[in-house]
């Protein structure tokens, strides 16, 4: 059991900055995030995009903002559970919460701060009617262990880097055959990956099926064939052991939506006094919350985090009074 003062769900900019403000009040934080790295949307969706509305930064790349935040919170030694999604929350008899992830990692703290942004990032699933009946029976959205595909016929869908990279890897090292199905003739991945795929296609190691998409799945107990719809050639089936659709990730509010929190328009309702939710001890900050006048801006999330930890402190230390200290007096080490 991981013990801390504040469990922060979501390691995006808002969750990360919470560590800093909590650290100034001597509160320890542990962050949980479904993605394998910190930074949330900034790292996952747009690390190379410049942001212009962070005070005192005329322009900063989203990825650099995350790097800076990680550096800023480093003195307070935050801990992380990454690549795991917060799944359940249980209140204990001593007024604490136990948050458990999808992999069973347990965390206990008197305060939970949900900084979950748009939710946890999950693979985009293509709209095929009987898709779910073949999940883990030949259809995988993530390649966890390439050895799994040794000697197998594999069809990959998608035109991005992960589709290209896995097609190359599996074709060169493990699979019996690799086909790559893509909606267009051009690919948007790194140029060298695209070239490599073309080379392998020429050598007959990758079968390129462009201007096409997978529209159907069939098999008895497991996947045996897919139906491909080609722009000009029409529909036909292709035998395969595996189909790996790689269409990127999209955020879903997910299990948090079932925690008994008051939800409005896919966001958690909070009291703007301290960003508390309807469950005492559980707060929601950043893009995941909603209130009258809400703006989904990183800068507003920072403000919310700052006020939220004051209230969290009161809950954890009901008998202590807080006095605002400025970081300019003795530096961060003075806290």
């Amino acid at each position, binding site marked *: 059991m991981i013990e801390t003062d504040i469990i922060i769900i979501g390691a995006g900019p808002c969750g990360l900055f919470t560590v800093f403000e909590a650290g100034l009040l001597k509160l320890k934080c542990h962050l949980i995030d479904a993605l394998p790295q910190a930074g949330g949307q900034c790292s996952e969706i747009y690390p190379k995009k410049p942001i212009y509305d962070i005070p005192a930064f005329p322009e900063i790349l989203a990825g650099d903002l995350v790097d800076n935040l990680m550096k800023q919170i480093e003195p307070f030694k935050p801990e992380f559970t990454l690549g795991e999604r917060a799944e359940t929350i249980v209140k204990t008899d001593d007024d604490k919460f136990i948050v458990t992830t999808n992999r069973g990692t347990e965390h206990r703290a008197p305060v939970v701060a949900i900084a979950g942004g748009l939710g946890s990032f999950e693979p985009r699933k293509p709209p095929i009617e009987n898709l779910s009946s073949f999940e883990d029976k030949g259809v995988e959205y993530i390649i966890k262990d390439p050895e799994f595909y040794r000697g197998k016929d594999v069809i990959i869908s998608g035109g991005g880097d992960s589709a290209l990279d896995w097609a190359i890897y599996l074709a060169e090292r493990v699979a019996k055959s690799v086909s790559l199905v893509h909606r267009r003739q051009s690919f948007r991945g790194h140029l060298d990956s695209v070239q490599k795929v073309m080379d392998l296609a020429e050598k007959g190691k990758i079968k390129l099926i462009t201007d096409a998409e997978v529209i159907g799945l069939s098999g008895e107990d497991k996947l045996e064939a897919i139906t491909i719809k080609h722009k000009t050639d029409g529909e036909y089936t292709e035998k395969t052991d595996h189909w790996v659709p790689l*269409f990127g990730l999209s955020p879903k509010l997910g299990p948090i939506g079932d925690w008994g929190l008051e939800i409005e328009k896919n966001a958690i309702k909070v009291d703007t006094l301290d960003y508390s939710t309807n469950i005492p001890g559980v707060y929601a900050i950043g893009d995941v919350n909603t209130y009258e006048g809400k703006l989904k801006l990183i800068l507003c999330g920072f403000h919310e985090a700052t006020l939220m930890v004051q209230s969290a402190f009161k809950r954890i230390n009901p008998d202590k009074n807080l006095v605002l200290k400025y970081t300019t007096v003795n530096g961060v080490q003075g806290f």
Partner: protein
Amino acid sequence: MSDNIIKVTVTDREGKDHELDAPTDMGMNMMELCKAAELPVEGTCGGMAMCASCHMYIQSDHTLNDLSDDEEDMLDQAFFVEENSRLGCQIHLSHEIDGLKVRLAPINND
């Protein structure tokens, strides 16, 4: 009526038409217009052509700005893509698109 207002029609996923007054002087795009009208358009990435949650079909024969590489790439990751597919966030409200008709693409709830 001000000179800076155009009309566009958005057909929602239930097939209902919404005729919207769209301002051309606020730097807005179709995704933002739909959100402002509380139509079910997510606009997850905020308009950077990075999520495809504002996928819509162009139903009228207006000539729109060309697809950027980013938009093409993003449509590759979207589903239910047709010849007339666009991302709403890449369609800027201007006088050229007065009378535009669009239909929201289905979303995959899975």
